[in-house]
């Protein structure tokens, strides 16, 4: 009886070591994603999750980064800055090599100091202008900040639309108001008058009064800066009330989700797009096909941001030559990732000292229920 028990314990120990050994030898790097999986940002977070998961599967299938496999860990912020802070804090206590997310600018805002203090690179999806202006050496964008995209859209309103007056419709949260605060000085700088400055609510269902006000302003063009679902509702109401002036937007207004929701009300909408699965680029087309096949729906810009994050990490780790958070951040500053060498990055992009990104972008129009690229705008500093 005694021997039996000894044998059992011994056998269990051998078995346990046998199971544990390969796991240890494999050496997996855990990357926490602190993103919006519930609450108002859930659709955004889900896109990011799908995109980043797909990228990590590809990277791991090709042998990982410097021989190490990546394991993603998804943590919900509930779209709440306080919870995002707790999530990032918990992730940082485990001394990760890098963290991904959050995507909502407010949540990035409360966490960027933590990652800066802990000296851990944070690859995030926020677009508010002030994020990269706070001097963190560990914060990196996956898309244009409003500090980059708004001058482009203002220039387009002047040259492309030839507008002398513009009505601005924005959403009253950090995303919408940040965009509004960024575009108004850019418009004024170009001699364009702001005919109306309209605040709307996140999650607003009825845009009838806002469209009435926009019509009354009688501006040459209407700049609509709302998140996807609100954009679609606004467009439907604008069509209903027979708005004829050009509707101009930035990335969200021309997204596939808006087109699906607003249907023919989205027809003719124009604007500037930072990232789009409709870009006339073989790598982006290939990405679009893979994503749609895997998840059964098309990717929007947030899916692309999530997809690029692991590839940014890969390029930086390979440049640094080692897995070390400080070295990764240092390597990303001033790094240009060329899709010829790293196809996963999709578009040629350069990250500057603040973590801001420079890459080509597009002027697009909705035609026949699809986003069509009209013109490709080159990098600011090619």
């Amino acid at each position, binding site marked *: 009886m005694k021997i039996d028990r000894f044998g059992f314990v011994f056998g269990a120990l051998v078995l346990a070591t046998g199971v544990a050994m390969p796991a240890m030898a494999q050496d997996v790097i855990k990357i926490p994603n602190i993103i919006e999986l519930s609450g108002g940002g859930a659709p955004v977070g889900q896109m990011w999750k799908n995109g980043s998961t797909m990228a990590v599967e590809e990277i791991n299938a090709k042998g990982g980064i410097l021989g190490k496999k990546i394991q993603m860990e998804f943590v*919900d912020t509930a779209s709440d800055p*306080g919870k995002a*802070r707790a999530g990032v804090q918990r992730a940082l206590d485990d001394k990760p090599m890098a963290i991904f997310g959050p995507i909502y600018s407010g949540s990035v805002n409360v966490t960027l100091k933590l990652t800066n203090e802990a000296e851990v690179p944070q690859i995030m999806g926020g677009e508010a202008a002030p994020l990269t202006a706070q001097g963190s050496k560990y914060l990196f964008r996956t898309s244009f900040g409003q500090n980059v995209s708004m001058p482009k859209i203002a220039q387009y309103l002047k040259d492309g639309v030839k507008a002398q007056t513009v009505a601005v419709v924005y959403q*009253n949260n950090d995303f919408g*108001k940040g965009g509004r605060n960024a575009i108004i000085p850019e418009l004024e700088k170009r001699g364009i008058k702001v005919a109306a400055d309209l605040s709307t609510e996140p999650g607003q269902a009825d845009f009838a009064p806002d469209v009435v006000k926009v019509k009354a302003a009688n501006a040459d063009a209407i700049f609509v800066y709302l998140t996807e679902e609100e954009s679609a509702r606004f467009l439907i109401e604008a069509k209903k009330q027979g708005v004829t002036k050009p509707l101009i937007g930035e990335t969200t207004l021309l997204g596939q989700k808006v087109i699906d929701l607003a249907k023919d009300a989205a027809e003719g909408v124009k604007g500037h797009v930072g990232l789009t699965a409709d870009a006339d680029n073989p790598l982006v087309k290939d990405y679009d096909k893979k994503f749609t096949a895997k998840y059964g729906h098309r990717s929007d810009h947030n899916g692309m941001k999530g997809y690029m994050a692991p590839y940014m990490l890969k390029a930086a780790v390979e440049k640094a030559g080692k897995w070390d958070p400080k070295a990764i951040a240092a390597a990303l500053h001033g790094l240009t990732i060329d899709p010829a060498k790293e196809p996963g990055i999709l578009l040629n992009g350069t990250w500057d000292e603040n973590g801001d990104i420079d890459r080509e972008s597009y002027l697009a129009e909705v035609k026949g229920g699809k986003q069509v690229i009209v013109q490709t705008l080159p990098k600011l500093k090619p």
Partner: protein
Amino acid sequence: MSTLKRYQFPALIIALILLAAMPADLTGLGIPWTGFKRYGLYIISLWLVTAIAAMGVNLIMGYAGQETLAQAAFLGIGAYTMALLTTKLGVPYFVAFAAAGALCFVVGILLGFPALRVQKHYLAFVTLAFAVFVWLFIRNEQWLTGGVFGIQDVPRPVIFGIKTRPPLVFYWFVLFMTVVLAAVMWWLLRSPWGRAFTALRENPVRAESLGIDVRSYKLLAFAVGSAYGGFAGALYAPLVEFIDPAPFALGPSLYYLLMILVGGMGYFLGPFVGAAVGVLIPEWLRFTEGLAPIIFAVIVMIMVALAPRGILGLIEQLLTPKRRPHSDVTGPTLGAGATLTKSSAEKVTS
């Protein structure tokens, strides 16, 4: 009850020592315990801050029998008072702390004065409207509150030369403030005021006939409870070091109500238990990603179904030896209502 009462004081001291020592690194004292990391410290501090706000709700609902749906709004008033006074005017921490509580007390009186003329559900509606108003105000008045961008870099105080910026020191500071505020609440509930509050809840007509000024006491309970929300806010702002309107909306106000129901309404420790459920369970459920809110809701529904008087009510029920209904010779014999009054009164004094 008496068994609980006998061990109460030593248990409290042990609990406090544990709370103070548990998060610290004790390896220097020869104990193999490295304490909590920053995340653990943040969560346990958040638990205490939430418990302070919940204590206020407990006073209003559990003791004075009123209803409030505006505790998060008072938390917001406190947090913004603290943030604005310290970041923009450089006011010392404790002055700002007192101001946060005082402002909430005054607003509580102004809000309660017209509302308390009517029965309790009407107060709930007035507080609901007030909660929405406060949220809209802090979101839209950008010149004052920073609007949706919030206020950044709310400083943690320096007390007698001790910087509370390190997470462990700030946690001890929060713990100290919690103990002080809990002691004040304890004293208040045992004072004639506290007895009057309970009398109001149990039988307002009888209380009035005994010479208690029903309206003043209701108002006092509401204002003091709201001030606790303000104190909690004044600790919340330096804890997170950033505030924006989101945590002070109507939804979080309902959450405080839920914590009191789950923890045990009218029990002194109810807010601490309820806040633990409200803060810790969602954190543990993070690994479930998007499913967390659903699982949390199911857990709360099961809890409320199994323990309608809250977790502490359930514990009390389990610890109290079962008696036959008529063996209670010392209690009044005028029926169930009178017995209920007695047991509730016991709750307060214990």
